[in-house]
């Protein structure tokens, strides 16, 4: 048994939730999910966009969350409470700087099942609902976690959520000459041949109707 033990991970998740839950506007809870034979606690936070920057700085400095995994932007045009949503995923690697022994890095290869307290690795999922419809904005965390830099560029490029304070925002995945306002992952853009009838209608490409079009399919 050399994976991280469940109890220590769940207790570490609870401590983190209690600490961060105290910040104003933040609602936090531990979501327990099973993956394979292991219970997997995830720290879930919902943060209003206004004080997201403050929460991010405190997470990095006080709670040692050092690894930004992914940023997702979702466009909820029909949903009632939010128009856009930005979901952050973080990992606490719980890795202290390995000591240097006679000029060589001596990595701490401890058996991960004995890890306790603050150096237990944790998963954190943060969702930020945004209300305004025209141009959604969220504070950028590029300078805290440099790993989030290209994630933010990609989210703006594909979903169109702007990140204030992000230097060098440019199109990363799309061709450079795509028109300004075009962000494909927004729900109003449809895939080609989205509804199959259209594809069948134009199967020979000369707008001819397929032979069995009147028959009830």
């Amino acid at each position, binding site marked *: 048994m050399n994976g991280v033990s469940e109890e220590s991970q769940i207790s570490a998740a609870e401590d983190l939730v209690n600490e961060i839950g105290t910040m104003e506007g933040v609602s936090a809870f531990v979501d327990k999910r099973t993956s394979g034979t292991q219970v997997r606690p995830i720290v879930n936070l919902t943060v209003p966009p206004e004080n997201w920057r403050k929460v991010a700085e405190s997470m990095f400095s006080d709670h040692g969350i050092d690894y930004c995994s992914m940023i997702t932007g979702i466009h909820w045009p029909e949903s009632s409470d939010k128009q856009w949503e930005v979901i952050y995923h973080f990992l606490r690697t719980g890795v202290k700087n390995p000591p240097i022994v006679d000029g060589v890095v001596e990595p701490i290869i401890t058996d991960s099942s004995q890890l306790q307290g603050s150096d237990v690795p944790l998963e954190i999922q943060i969702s930020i609902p945004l209300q305004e419809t025209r141009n959604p904005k969220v504070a950028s965390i590029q300078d805290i976690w440099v790993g989030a830099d290209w994630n933010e560029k990609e989210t703006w490029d594909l979903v169109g959520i702007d990140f204030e304070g992000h230097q060098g925002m440019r199109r990363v995945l*799309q*061709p*450079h000459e795509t028109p300004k306002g075009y962000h494909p992952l927004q729900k109003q853009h449809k*895939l080609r*041949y989205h509804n199959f009838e259209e594809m069948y209608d134009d199967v020979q490409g000369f707008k001819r109707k397929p032979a069995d079009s009147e028959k009830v399919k």
Partner: protein
Amino acid sequence: MSEDGQNYTMFSSRMLVDTVGDTTDAALEASGLREVIGVLAGRIFNWGQRKSLFPLHLGIKCCALEMAAAGASRFDAERFGVFFRSSPRQCDVLLVNGPITKKFADPIVRLWEQMPEPKWCIAMGECAISGGPYFQSYNVLEGVDTVIPVDIYIPGCPPRPEALIDGFGKLREKIIRIGAVPSHARTDGVAPIIIGDE
């Protein structure tokens, strides 16, 4: 020495080359040897072109790994004279092995134009033939033949290395039938060959 302006040599070598060329032409014509040399040389050059098809070292997506596997030791493509070069100037087959996105459309056309004639294009894998699983995507062209004339289509996602080697075999058959002539001199109407449909 193509333009006159660049021609620094006092003695115009092109004049010498032209005169020598014309006289030998006339002599061969008279002796009927021109026919013999023309036919035999045609066969030898055709054999040469067929037996050494250099594809471009261009890997777009998963079919690139099947291309590498075809070049490796189990399915050895080099048995048939297929030797991967990485500069378009030295290749005569453009093996397109992945989806062509809008961003890669004009670089691939530039690669195609950099290749000297006579050149052929093999569309390997679904993505190169018709956009494959990404035919609905906003960023993928539906097939390479929207930008480049294609000679051989190899279906499969990804096609097995044997299919790729069979594709080169089909290309050799096409070369032996229509000759290793530049594309403008080709008799059109020769439908592209699709592996496995005969």
